[in-house]
């Protein structure tokens, strides 16, 4: 599956030719039926996933976790501990799958890289003046290059919500393409829309298409730093967008809900959304991720419960 922007850009070349053309295209996208979307997300959340299906879902969810620490108080020690946990989430059961990646600030990439060395766990770095994104483009690009130089496998960028909400779509588009270029061929780019700040579902759909047109490898809901983070409804909307985008251009784009997903039950609901909306092609950590930190502990406790038949407790998983 090609992941670069070029075929998509060819298919929709005229769309991104000018600010007005881009606006015409994005505003020409069908409006979102908010009530229908929320009802659909809620009804998919009522599926009962039990026994072997649950065991499969929990292992899949663990393998999709981007284990995240994005605090001002992050120390090298904490990042090393996180790396160790990403490689062996449950040291008492080596059959537990590793997580997909650890997600850290750019200055911690080198430490994280060392901590996961020798495993398949990737290192993702937030960049571009995360989480606000309020910095000049040159600073954002420098941020990305630093992270790349330190060895990041994936870059999580934030879009300029101010420009997006002001309707300057081409500025947002240009920024994403510039960052994509800085990532080169070696790193996958996740584009964070901060859906909680986009006000409407229509805006989330527009942002999704804008991000995909600009060459995002992943579209991601949130930074986890605002009041409203990933919800089933906005994730469903983004899953519809990647499905439609692949149907139209042949390019597959991943989705990453982040923030606010804390329980196994929530995670399984999201997996149901993926399977029923985008399809089983996305049920892989190359195409779907959870941005989370406390979720992993709950998944591990549920996994222990399934393995032993006894309810587990927080004493049997690590604190962070």
């Amino acid at each position: 599956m090609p992941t670069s922007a070029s075929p998509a850009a060819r298919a929709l070349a005229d769309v991104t030719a000018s600010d007005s053309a881009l606006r015409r295209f994005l505003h020409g996208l069908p409006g979102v039926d908010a009530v229908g979307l929320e009802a659909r997300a809620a009804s998919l959340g009522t599926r009962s996933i039990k026994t072997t299906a649950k065991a499969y879902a929990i292992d899949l969810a663990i393998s999709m976790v981007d284990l995240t620490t994005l605090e001002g108080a992050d120390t090298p020690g904490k990042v090393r501990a996180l790396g160790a946990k990403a490689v062996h989430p449950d040291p008492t059961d080596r059959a537990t799958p590793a997580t997909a990646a650890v997600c850290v600030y750019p200055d911690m990439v080198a430490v994280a890289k060392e901590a996961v060395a020798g495993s398949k766990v990737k290192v993702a770095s937030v960049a571009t003046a995360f989480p606000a994104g309020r910095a000049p483009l040159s600073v954002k690009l420098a941020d990305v290059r630093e992270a790349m130089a330190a060895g990041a496998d994936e870059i999580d960028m934030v879009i300029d919500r101010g420009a997006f909400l002001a309707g300057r779509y081409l500025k947002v588009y240009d920024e994403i393409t510039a960052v994509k270029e800085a990532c080169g061929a070696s790193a996958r780019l996740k584009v964070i829309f901060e859906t909680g700040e986009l006000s409407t579902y229509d805006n989330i759909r527009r942002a999704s298409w804008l991000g995909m047109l600009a060459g995002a490898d992943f579209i991601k809901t949130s930074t986890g730093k605002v009041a409203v983070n990933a919800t089933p409804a906005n994730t469903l909307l983004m899953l519809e967008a990647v499905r439609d985008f692949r149907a139209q251009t042949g390019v597959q784009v991943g989705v990453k809900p982040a923030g606010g997903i804390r329980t196994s039950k929530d995670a399984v609901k999201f997996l149901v959304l993926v399977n029923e909306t985008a399809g089983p092609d996305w049920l892989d950590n190359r195409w779907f991720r959870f941005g989370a930190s406390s979720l992993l502990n709950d998944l591990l406790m549920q996994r222990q419960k399934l393995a032993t038949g006894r309810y587990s407790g927080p004493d049997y998983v690590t604190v962070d």
Partner: protein
Amino acid sequence: MSDKPEKTERSGRLSVFKTYKLYVGGKFPRSESGRVYEVTDSQGNWLANAPLASRKDARDAVVAARKAFGPWSGATAYNRGQILYRVAEMLEGRREQFVREVAEAEGLSRAQAEAQVDAAIDRWVWYAGWTDKIAQVVGGGNPVAGPFFNLSSPEPTGVVAVLAPQESSFLGLVSVIAPVIATGNTAVVIASERFPLPALSLGEVLATSDLPGGVVNVLSGRTAEIAAPLAAHQDVNAIDLAGADEALAKELEIAAADNLKRVLRPQPVDDAGWSATPGIDRMTAFLETKTVWHPTGSLGASGSSY
């Protein structure tokens, strides 16, 4: 009040039946399973439907109890005493309701039921007094051969699963809950299987007594069904088997051994049925002793500070 239906017929007013619910985390949920079972009085007449809790309700109750443990065990003993006394105050105001529920459930005369309820209220007061005194009785300073203070203090064990006595639906219930929470533990209580209504009503009293949500969680249903997952639960620290028969107690004790839970086996009950002064054994059963060594201070270069 057992003649309520007749009264309502005469007054032409529709009966208002009470929906008994569980008490978990300070809220009153129905059972997650949606199940209920019929509760009857001693003559077999229908009294109410009580929730038939499932193992998931038990799991949710443990989560609530664990969340409440930090603040409750960290509250001052004096404050816990005030709250336990407040429970007695609130019960006093609803004495009539409990007298009726106990009389109906256990088939007691009004006078006997009143005696039970009064004893239960007094028991809250008794344990309220103990909260800030137990540490002086079972802890203290130990003499050691060195320049140290050596202090032993009792600390609460954590989340305690309590199987309430099957026969004494209210006095027995209070007699097992109050000592657990007086010392700072939090409790998941399985009400008497046949007589759950006084326990479920007690939840309503606790909710209005300044007791933080989650400190006491009340489940009703089949004791064996709910107790099994609690005994095996890795995040439950102790279990009181007061309401288990011999076979069930043995089974639960085996399950509880897995994470080394403290187990209080069923204790012989006095002839008068829980009415004797309880002593401190039920409190100490769920306490752990922490001993701290602390330097006595400036025992400096001079050799001795004394």
